[in-house]
């Protein structure tokens, strides 16, 4: 008899060697208690958090916490069903209006997670006879949404408008609709999409354009509307999807659009129809966090200043950090044998970052993914850089002095 679990044998072996090489399981880190947005207790020690997506620190927003408490007291803690089958609450519509107004769009759909927003929008929009053009480094939720919708999927080289253009031109399918999907900021590397160039291609070829602003909402653009705003490309973006789980610090996903057909998507979208809607306290906290974000544009400036400080620090240390300054900064190492001890040493010395191993990384080298928050202090960033230096020395990681 074949075991159901025999397919996990390779994984078990790989995990075993990661644990043996470093002494702990990097995928089972427990944050025992957050002390603030930037410090948490891990293994009993106060640890600097540089591995969250809490870019603006709003998971600890006082306004959001109070809104959640009040909503739970008034409305209860759950909806017990889907919007379609079991009814929408006034809170849901109010949040959708608030999100749509923020993006200056006709309407918004709120989903229970960002993962479901991608799954739902992509599968509902791109059906069997349509073509999807996906950036090669797309998030899993984008790939999964593509599969759920049975569209023809064509992958283009990461962040390459030329390659996208070539593949659109190569395709001879005048009667098929085409949807291009890109991300504002890529979650692993911090790369930012060249939105203006993608928009020009969309205009020339008559394709539709969707951008997942999961990591760029609240982060890029003068008003925090993301990479499309930052590059002046919003008019050409048909659909923006995103999540509340990063810059707003809660949970949930959304899609905004000017296309009136969004209302019909609600009835043709399995990840929206067949799951419970967000509970009142999350809806209320999200709305309040968005108000906080709008009221405090200085958070975005501080975030970028902090990102620049960390990035410059990595450069000065001679570590191989992403070229682009963004709140996600990945330090690339050459081998997994370097990355595992380095990640463990960082945690022992008091810094939590994300360990990302191939094949989950774009170019088959391991990454230490660091994410910056507006609420990090300059002193915390300096301390983190000192700990990176110490850990690199302790683990024998080569550091090239950058000519600067």
């Amino acid at each position, binding site marked *: 008899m074949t075991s159901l679990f025999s397919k996990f044998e390779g994984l078990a072996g790989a995990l075993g060697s990661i644990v043996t090489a470093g002494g702990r399981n990097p995928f089972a880190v427990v944050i025992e208690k957050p002390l603030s947005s930037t410090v948490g207790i891990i293994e009993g020690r106060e640890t600097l958090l540089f591995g969250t997506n809490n870019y603006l620190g709003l998971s600890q927003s006082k306004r959001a916490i109070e809104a959640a408490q009040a909503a739970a007291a008034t409305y209860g803690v759950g909806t017990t069903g889907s919007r379609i089958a079991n009814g929408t609450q006034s809170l849901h519509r109010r949040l959708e209006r608030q999100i749509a107004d923020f993006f200056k769009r006709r309407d918004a759909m709120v989903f229970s997670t960002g993962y479901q927003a991608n799954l739902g929008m992509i599968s509902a929009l791109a059906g069997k006879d349509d*073509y999807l053009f996906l950036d090669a480094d797309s998030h899993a939720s984008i790939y999964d949404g593509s599969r759920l919708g049975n569209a023809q*999927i*064509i992958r283009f080289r990461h962040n390459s408008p030329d390659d996208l253009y070539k*593949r659109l031109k*190569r395709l001879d399918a005048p009667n098929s609709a085409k949807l291009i999907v890109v991300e504002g900021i890529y979650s692993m590397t911090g790369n930012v999409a060249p939105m203006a160039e993608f928009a020009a291609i969309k205009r020339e070829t008559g394709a539709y354009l969707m951008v997942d602003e999961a990591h760029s909402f609240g982060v890029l653009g003068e008003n925090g509307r993301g990479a499309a705003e930052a590059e002046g490309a919003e008019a050409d973006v048909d659909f923006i999807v995103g999540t509340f789980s990063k810059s707003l610090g809660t949970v949930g996903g959304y899609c905004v659009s000017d296309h009136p057909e969004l209302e019909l998507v609600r009835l043709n979208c399995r990840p929206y129809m067949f799951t419970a809607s967000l509970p009142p306290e999350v809806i209320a906290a999200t709305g309040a966090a968005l108000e906080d974000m709008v009221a405090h544009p200085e958070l975005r400036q501080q975030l970028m200043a902090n990102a620049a400080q960390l990035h410059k620090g990595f450069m000065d240390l001679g570590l191989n950090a992403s070229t682009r300054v963004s709140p996600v900064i990945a330090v690339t190492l050459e081998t997994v044998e370097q990355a595992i001890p380095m990640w463990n040493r960082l945690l022992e010395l008091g810094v939590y970052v994300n360990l990302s191993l191939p*094949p989950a990384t774009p170019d*088959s080298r391991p990454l230490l993914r660091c994410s910056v928050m507006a609420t990090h202090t300059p002193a915390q960033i300096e301390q983190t850089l000192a700990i990176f230096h110490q850990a690199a020395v302790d683990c024998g990681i080569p550091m090239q002095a950058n000519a600067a």
Partner: protein
Amino acid sequence: MSETVESVSALIIQKLLANPKVPRDIDGNCKIMEDLAFDSLAVMNFVMEVEDSLDVSVPLDKLADIRTINDLAACIVDLKNKG
């Protein structure tokens, strides 16, 4: 279009052999993931290179049915003949 399964298969093998990690004795019947130890991402990235050489795009859903080098060659010839 003059490509045949044999000629496309030969081109794929030639491209694969440019990668020093690939075993030297591969032929058209080799299974891409099992025999060449490619993970799913490596397969997608490799197919992209072949696409560029032959000026064709292989939709990802077609990849699900492809196991051997000859399967990939046949799929590409089929796509080219349609185009």
